[in-house]
């Protein structure tokens, strides 16, 4: 009987050798006369175990990782096709505590399915949200998103329902849905993962947004640093069009939705929405003043919904299960789940989707396993380079967007300061960088470092930071809690 082996095609997994492992498994199986079917799935998000190879045995998937090509013969010897014991054996994937403790709603199919198989997508609950939305009135779709309490996952945290309602109520005519996939903030990779691991979910979310606000055209603005995500999305859009999910007749409903893929060109600032829209129009990506809001005068001067990848990808689940079910997760005014991205000097970096309310300590130690170098964690950067550096004493604070905003040092939050102009730099004479930054991205990084340095000097209760070398165990938790929020009038 042909047995299925899952080898991730996720760019990160491939970056640590998944492709070579895949070829070795094929060769080894052929040499041994074994029939195996290799499925290229997305990543489970357990990146310290990548390449994480899963063997399907009686419908259950057994995990082995991290597998190097030279481990493959040994794994066959150990009888991994029957779940044999081996140093890299982790038991059933679903039972790995890192995964078991998560609440995967948006990332439910991540690593489970073949990202480009529509059949797989349907079999795992895909398109249910869209089918439901097609039977609903536009207001009801917006109401469902509103009830779910979904807020923008790009960082500003603006209620998605309110944004959609504004576009829905805007004058008729051409409207657009724009997906902000310019995931430029360092430490963030959940957008990339989702686009590579479950592209139909994003497409479905964008169509639902189109139905809700009356838009028949969408754009995905993807950063050029993600060539693999580009390939997957391109394939997925072709498949979705061929299968009648995109195009003139969405699932036979008579409704139209066309989707365009647009490649950015290495401008960090284009992650800000007005700048992003300028870029799609073929102009220099300069940040525009608001108002007018893009919701009223956006792309080509028409009402436009601009949402982040994860925001749009959260929508199918909400429509399929109802706003109340989504709202049941989370705490306070932050509802639903948030995919945290653990990276940097951590033992177990990866993607952790949990309901709002988990503390940083749980994320850093229970999931992250402490620092990779074994030294105590002294500082945590939360929310990307425009986010905040937090001391360890803040680590019991629940990771609620609003709460974190209040408790974080104020300057750090306002920190999205004028960091996109070179002149800001010269106002910091004591800093070791005298040259003008070569890019806005570099500028943002320098700004983050300045804030870190300034904060270290100011904080008397944590003097060790002041003397710590820059290589101090430091890790980044990215959930884009305040990303470029400065530019959004609704951030706050």
């Amino acid at each position, binding site marked *: 009987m042909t047995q299925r082996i899952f080898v991730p095609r996720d*760019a990160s997994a491939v*970056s640590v050798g998944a492709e070579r492992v895949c070829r070795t498994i094929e060769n080894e199986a052929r040499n041994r006369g074994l029939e195996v079917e290799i499925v290229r799935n997305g990543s489970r998000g357990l990146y310290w175990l990548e390449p994480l190879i899963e063997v399907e045995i009686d419908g259950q998937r057994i995990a082995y990782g991290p597998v190097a090509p030279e481990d493959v013969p040994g794994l066959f010897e150990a009888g991994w096709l029957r779940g044999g014991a081996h140093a890299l054996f982790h038991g059933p994937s679903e039972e790995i505590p890192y995964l078991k403790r998560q609440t995967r709603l948006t990332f439910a199919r991540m690593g489970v399915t073949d990202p480009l198989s529509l059949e797989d997508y349907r079999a795992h609950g895909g398109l249910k949200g869209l089918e439901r939305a097609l039977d609903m009135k536009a207001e009801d779709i917006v109401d469902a998103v509103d009830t779910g309490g979904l807020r923008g996952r790009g960082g500003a945290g603006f209620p998605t329902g309110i944004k959609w309602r504004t576009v829905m109520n805007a004058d008729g005519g051409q409207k657009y849905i724009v997906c902000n996939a310019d995931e430029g903030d360092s430490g963030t*990779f959940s957008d990339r993962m989702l686009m590579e691991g479950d592209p139909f979910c994003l497409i479905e979310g964008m169509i639902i947004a189109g139905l809700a606000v009356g838009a028949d055209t969408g754009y995905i603005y993807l950063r050029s640093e993600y060539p693999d995500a580009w390939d997957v999305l391109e394939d997925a859009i072709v498949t979705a069009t061929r299968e009648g999910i995109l195009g003139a007749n969405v699932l036979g409903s008579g409704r139209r939705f066309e989707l365009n893929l647009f490649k950015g060109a290495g401008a960090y600032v284009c992650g800000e929405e007005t700048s992003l829209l300028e870029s799609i129009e073929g102009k220099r990506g300069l940040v525009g003043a608001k108002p007018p809001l893009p919701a009223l005068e956006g792309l080509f*001067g028409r009402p436009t919904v601009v949402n982040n990848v994860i925001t749009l990808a959260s929508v199918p689940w909400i429509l399929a299960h109802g706003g109340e079910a989504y709202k049941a997760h989370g705490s306070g005014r932050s509802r639903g789940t948030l995919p945290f991205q653990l*990276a940097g*000097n951590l033992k177990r970096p990866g993607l952790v989707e949990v309901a709002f309310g988990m503390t940083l300590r749980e994320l850093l130690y229970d999931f992250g396993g402490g620092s990779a170098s074994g030294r105590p964690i002294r500082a945590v950067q939360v929310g990307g380079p425009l986010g905040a550096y937090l001391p360890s004493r803040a680590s019991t604070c629940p990771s609620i967007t609003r709460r974190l905003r209040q408790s974080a040092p104020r300057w750090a939050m306002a920190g999205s300061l004028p960091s996109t102009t070179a002149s800001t730099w010269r106002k910091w004479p004591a800093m070791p960088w005298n040259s003008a930054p070569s890019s806005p991205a*570099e500028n*943002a990084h320098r700004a983050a470092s300045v804030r870190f340095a300034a904060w270290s000097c100011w904080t008397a209760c944590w003097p060790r930071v002041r003397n710590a070398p820059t290589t101090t165990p430091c890790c*980044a938790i990215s959930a884009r809690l305040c990303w470029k929020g400065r530019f959004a009038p609704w951030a706050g």
Partner: protein
Amino acid sequence: MSNTNQADLLPALHRLQEKFGYIPDHAIADLAKAHNMAQAEVVGVIGFYHDFRRTPPGRQRLRICRAESCQAMGADALAMHASTQLGVEFGATTADGEVTLEAAYCLGNCACSPAVMLDDDLHGRVSVERLDAILAEGRGV
């Protein structure tokens, strides 16, 4: 109403660069005409985006991520090694025209830091030895 013609400019620039490796000067006039723009505007757009080059790059493009996550995992040492090994500063091309060395600020591979990208191939958990191997492989050694 904005000029929708101009909306095709970025895709056109990407196509050109994919073909030639850079945007040749003689293409500017054609681009301007095709997109109903002034030449100065086209140059302005090209200049705004870091991806677009006006001069030929090296045969390969090596990008080393220098953002926080990679830094926390040793990217600085990697960057210094690459610069010494290739004998060029960041932003420059080696004398033999083989490799252009660039800094990147996040390649989205933060959970497998430090990361580098050679052309479109992403590499994670890169040690100094591994970087040498990647470069050697790229040269076809």
